[in-house]
């Protein structure tokens, strides 16, 4: 999969963002880097998808945001998981595993 052309399915994007925020609060750029890192460079989230997703998830109550200082002392908006977000991550993880298993077995069938 080429980095440039990857269009993340919306559900996948949500899952990846939730996963990226499990350990600590991050700002937008850091989330983008984190996603790239945990997918071994497969997915790179563009700002045009990232910010709408962040705002949508915040309005859904999965994330909360606050302004803070970034690593090189610039002000940035940090997102963290809420309790609802954590539950959502569990739900989506289970769903994804089910789907992945199903797709894998479908592809292995002769």
């Amino acid at each position, binding site marked *: 999969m080429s980095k440039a052309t990857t269009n993340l399915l919306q559900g996948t994007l949500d899952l990846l963002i939730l996963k990226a925020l499990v350990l600590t609060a991050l*700002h*937008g*750029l850091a989330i983008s880097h984190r996603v790239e890192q945990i997918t071994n460079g497969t997915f790179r989230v*563009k*700002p*045009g998808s990232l*910010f*709408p*997703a962040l*705002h*949508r998830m*915040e*309005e*859904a*109550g999965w994330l909360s945001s606050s302004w803070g200082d*970034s690593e*090189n002392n*610039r*002000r*940035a*908006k940090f997102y963290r998981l809420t309790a*609802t977000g954590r539950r959502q991550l569990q739900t989506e993880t289970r769903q994804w595993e089910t789907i992945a298993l199903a797709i894998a077995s479908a592809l292995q069938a002769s």
Partner: protein
Amino acid sequence: MQFLSRLFSLGRNLFTRARVEQDLDAELRAYLDQVTDENRKTGMGLAEARREAQVELGGIEQVKEHVRQVRTGQVLEELLLDIRYGVRTLRKNLAFTVVAVLTLALGIGANTAMFSVAYGILLRPLPYPAADRVAVVYMNYFPREFKFGTMCIRDYLMWKENNRAFENPSLFRSLRMDIGGNEGVPEQVQGASVTAGFFSTLQVAPLIGRAFGVGEDRPAAASLAVLSESIWRRRFAASSAVLGQTILVNGAPSTVIGVMPDVFRYPRRETEVWTNLPLNPPTRFGPWFYRGVARLKPGVTMEQAQIELNSIGLRLMQENNYYKRLTLPVLNLRDALLGTTLKPAILVLAGAVGLVLLIAVVNVANLILARATVREREMALRLSLGAGRGRLIRQLLTESVLLAVMGGAAGLALAWGGIELIRAWNPGNLPLIDSVRLDGSALGFMILVSMLTGILFGLAPALQGSRADLNSTIKEGGRGASVGQARGRARAALVVSEIALSLTLLVGAGLLLRSFVNLQRVTGGFSAPPRQILTILISPGSKKYNDEHAGLAFYDEVLRRARSVPGVELAAVTDSLPPDRQGDADTFAIDGQTLPSGEMNPIISAPTVGPDYFRGLGIPLVKGRYFTEHDRSDSAAVAIVSEGFVRRFFPGQEAVGKRIKQSGPGYGDKWMEIVGVVGNVKYLGLTIDTDPAYYMPFAQSYGPRIYLVVRSSGDTTNQGAALRREIQSIDPGVTLAQIGTMEQALNLSVSQPRFDTMLLVLFAGIAMLLAAVGIYGLIAYSVAQRTHEIGLRMALGAAQGDVMQMVVRQAVSLAAIGIVIGLGGAFALTRLLKALLFGVGVTDALTFAAAPLGIVLVVLLATFVPAIRATRISPVVALRYE
């Protein structure tokens, strides 16, 4: 939990929008800075790092727009935004908005008012249950020849005996009644005398008490009265104690048994008292005062009833050889109430106002299309800034709906005002005016139509804008694009149709106007200034005046006192007045005339008049003499005939000295010598020929209820009250009614044609105005668009006159096409006016020639300003233009 979070977001997004936006902006800028920092770490210069970061972000405004799309309450917020933006756009283009809203308001208002009137009069259910099953039965026969004439009790009994089609045929007549008693001063009201089945046929329950029951129309039945709600409130303070009370009706005691609710207004709108009509066995045919009203039996149609009545008519003719060509026409209750000319008039007016709506809609479409071109660039710009096409469409829809709502609101106000005006003024005594009120469904329909127009034409820029090549549209403003040309053709077609529609209306209005002028020229046959003639209907009330001697003495005194009132020049009595108050009409015999067996002379106006009647009204004496004080009841019987009478019955002979007599059933053998010939007078309305007439002196043909006619030297305003005082001082039981000038009577008699004409002229005027706005808009726009071309032409040597000619030619050629189509439409449609026209044909050459000229004039006027503007174009400026 999630719901609460959403709710919170919604509140935040809606109410602290500025903060939310600021926050988003800061967030994205911070992101940009961060990426720039990272880029610089790889060794880029500041400028390059920043540019790379921007490329990476992909346009800060687009990202913002994407974020906004996912916000909670986005739809609501966008709607508010659209409305705010729409209002701003409309306010910025104030001229467009005002013209569009006014156009819509005129169209919607006029239509809603007219359709409310049409619905109220033609369609709104009558207050009588299943009124379409109720029939009114008339009688038409020679020699009387009234299409919807009256019958006598004998005819009714014959009908009732042979009736199978109707439930309970009943009979009624309208008459003036003097109401007196202990409860107040005597007054004269409209009354009706009805048989027992009258109220049960109309099926309206009394407010209190009861209506007439079975058998209460038998000979020698007790005299009973049913009151209207209005007289009950006025004279009896709405007290239920009125039941059983005795009142005086025309001097005879009657017992009040019930009160009808205000909705019950039959046979006339102003009827206030109903008395029971005792069916005394008639000794002869006549008098013909009555009409029938009856409810169809279940399963019987009006046509079947008419067939049965036709055969009953045949029997009536066999029974009495006085009747010739007798028919018993039926009308359903609504048609009977409407009369013959109102329905076509209202249909024509409703059709006309529909055309006005069409023109208004075309005009708004035209305006919006014109603006579409201007807005194409705005749309392209917004598309390129990341707005979705759906978003643009929604925006334009919002604007259209805003326009329609504003137009609708203004139209509602206009319609409401118009209806109140019509109700208050009640032109032409429109029957059923009480059931006219603002009709919600009509208003809704009009607003819907205008909204659809707005939507249909308003969407054009969005659809085309999203299709067009954004780059070239922004750069060139769409100039010269084929889309623009197609739109120009569409606008030209719209203007042509406007011209055609308004020409059709103008021709119709012109015909009615000509007809109305003809009607105004009809004098009614008298030359006295109508403003100086005051007439009063006097009824002496007490039964003692039924005696001729007492009555004549009373009226001598009335006339003596009337002449003593300051300003009164002449006073006279009469039972008939022009233009439409015919008193009596009868057939007659001529001494020496032999008619074929069974034939008789026609029934013509036979007024009873006192001395000074002719002189007072200014009816010319052609030959012989007027009646004088010496024509007493004990002197030789005399008569005066009209010129029309002489022409028809004594052609080429000397009429004075001949003898005639009244020859209807029941008249004796009193020959009257003709002593004079006078001019023709209209007694049944200005459009109906009543030229043949014979007059008898009041003293020789006495009746207690009579008009007093007074000719005054000047102002009649205070004379009514002075005359009332004088007359009631002779006998306080005397009642006076219908006090008014001849001018008022003339106005009232032409009020329906005036109403029709005024409205149609108004509609045609609005149509012309709208068409003028349309053509002005088109030409002005086209001149503005061709500024470059015109400048080039002028630079190459075209004179101002050439430019002007070019612009005018464009307008006139459009007008010419419109006129051709419009004339075709007019030829096809004006025949609908036939019933409404007097003295002018439906293809009147003058009207058909003048109306297109009027249109051309309006078109030239509308073209004038843009044409002048075109000639003022400076080549230097024009060539630089855009």
